[in-house]
């Protein structure tokens, strides 16, 4: 997993609450292996029309925001299905962080497992950020950039007068900063797991064969 320390990158504003994982990746692509084409499935039916042509109005197809590594979304982003393909295609497109007031529960967890940083900030601030990004039509792309410092848990973005801090659970904070997934840590607790299992088997023998 790629470590996340600091990122300053182009950000795209994504309008609409409750963007579900069926919109992020339609179900018909879930049978695909994760190969070089996977990034094309991201927002597929919003990015491409029925003939496979780019929908020029979609935010990631607009020259000013194409290739954004940071998305600024609205409430309950990634709700719905547990499909991790939603995170795979975001990551493969190049998205490294998503800012939203709230996230779909399973989607949030899936992000953490793939080095994609989900940042919760208040809805009002993010409304301002999205508006500022839309208004930043300057040829200079730095006017559309957001800067994230994960060690300090701060975000500096257009539309915010000063850096905003965000909350991050220390456990996942450390995993993301170091770029390690938690599996190695869990495997190091093999003794504790075996001990628990023994006790659990004796108190709940019907659960463990």
């Amino acid at each position, binding site marked *: 997993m790629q470590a996340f320390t600091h990122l300053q990158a182009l950000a795209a504003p994504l309008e609409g609450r409750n963007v579900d994982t*069926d919109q992020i990746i339609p*179900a018909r692509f879930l049978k695909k292996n994760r190969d070089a084409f996977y990034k094309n499935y991201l927002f597929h039916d919003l990015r491409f029309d029925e003939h496979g042509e780019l929908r020029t109005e979609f935010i990631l197809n607009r020259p000013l925001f194409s290739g954004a590594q940071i998305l600024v979304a609205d409430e309950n982003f990634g709700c719905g299905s547990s499909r991790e393909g939603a995170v795979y295609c975001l990551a493969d497109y190049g998205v490294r962080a998503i800012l939203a007031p709230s996230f779909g529960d399973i989607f949030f967890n899936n992000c953490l497992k793939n080095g994609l940083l989900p940042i919760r900030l208040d809805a009002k601030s993010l409304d301002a950020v999205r508006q500022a990004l839309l208004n930043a039509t300057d040829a200079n792309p730095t006017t559309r950039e957001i800067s994230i410092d994960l060690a300090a848990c701060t975000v500096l973005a257009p539309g915010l007068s000063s850096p905003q801090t965000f909350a991050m*659970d220390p456990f996942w904070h450390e995993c993301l900063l170091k770029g390690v997934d938690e599996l190695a840590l*869990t495997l190091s*607790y093999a003794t504790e797991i075996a001990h628990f299992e023994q006790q*659990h088997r004796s108190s*709940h023998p019907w*659960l463990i*064969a």
Partner: protein
Amino acid sequence: MNVFQEPTRRTLFEKIWDQHIVMPRPTGPSLLYIDRHIIHEGSFHAFKDLRAGGLSIRNPKQVFGVADHYVPTTSRDPNDAVTQEIKEVILKFDDNMKWSGAHYFSINDPQQGIVHVVGPEQGISLPGSIITCSDSHTSTHGAMGAMAFGVGQSESMHIMATQTLWQTKPLQMRIELTGKPAAGVGGKDIILAVIAKLGVAGAVGYAIEYAGSALQWLTLDERLTICNMTIEAGARSGLIAADDVVFNYLYGRKFAPQGAAWDQALQAWRQLPSDDGCHFDQTLSIDVTQLAPMLTWGTSPDTGVAIDGVIPDPSCLADPHARQAALAALTYMDLAPGTVLNTIKIDRVFIGSCTNSRLSDLRMAANILRGRRAVVPGTVVAGSMLIKQAAEAEGLDKIFIEAGLEWREPGCSMCVGINGDLALANERIASTSNRNFVGRQGPGVRTHLVSPAMAAAAAVTGHFTDVRTLMGQQ
């Protein structure tokens, strides 16, 4: 800390949580022991990581594979998959399950079905246990008095390798259901009303326990429907304390405890209900007596309205974001504000899915369809081979077929359409499934979520109809 402190009053969820902590942490996630993990064909990502990492399934007897998402519903032969690519996903699962050593309900298994139907039916889903599955509707199993939640592929791989998962404890919400539902109103209508009240993000960060006097009027199938769609309000889990209805249902099932172990389990299960006076972070009460049959009008599951109403007017919404979303939904659904709901014509019905494919769901639909003809095409997909068999023993299949509907083999089918069972572009469908998202049942397809009885009523009239007007008239 005073060691002689009285034990704190805990919720059902908290009791289960506490019994499964392998590594406690004061803040953030704790390492929890997972009793049962269920996977489907979409697990190929998890298996790839597992096998590439030189890992194996730690406890194969606590992992169950069920082929449901990609299987054809026209036959029990993977060669009948709609495309070669889909067939390969099914065969890949066969291969991975063989490698895993875990119990496998393959496409040919006489006990195959939809994961969330098979779990309770086989006695895999037990009260007081923690159940995970790589599917968001895992909340279903909470109706068995379990703590159940959906996970992604990385988490699924972690569970298969360690039988544990790092989890942050959710907040606790209690929804009290009071009163008695009217005839023609059931579990699906109740959960659509709950989601409409909470909103699709209203329970993010929560586990919801349902309680109250209305539960006594609901069948176990209806409780499963309610917990199933709890995820659609954003909650991680939905739970109902197990009672004699659950115990009687589980007794003698294949993976349920037997003999002395049953007695011991039963004693433990009876200690699990939430303590009187325990703390909930949020509470809500709904009188189900007042509910009418429901249907959704929009592109998110919280747009449920009573059948005797009209399409709401977005201009009445004060919040500009909500107004914009409602307008976009109406455009996609090709509906105008003020339209009387029972005049909206449909093109197709789908009766099935982990939400509504159990025997009582099929009976409910058959009761309306008996002696009548559907005027639109439709598909009925039983939730499991055992349910299909039981339905056929009662002659329900004949009722569906004589009404002009297709009677198919078990699977997720048109709920998610991954197997190729899709409606046609621009069709309007009355569906007993759980999600009405844009494009969910096929590009351009307009999904209205309803109960099996309401789907049947729409099938025979060709438009949404208050099922109560058709009851007992055949």
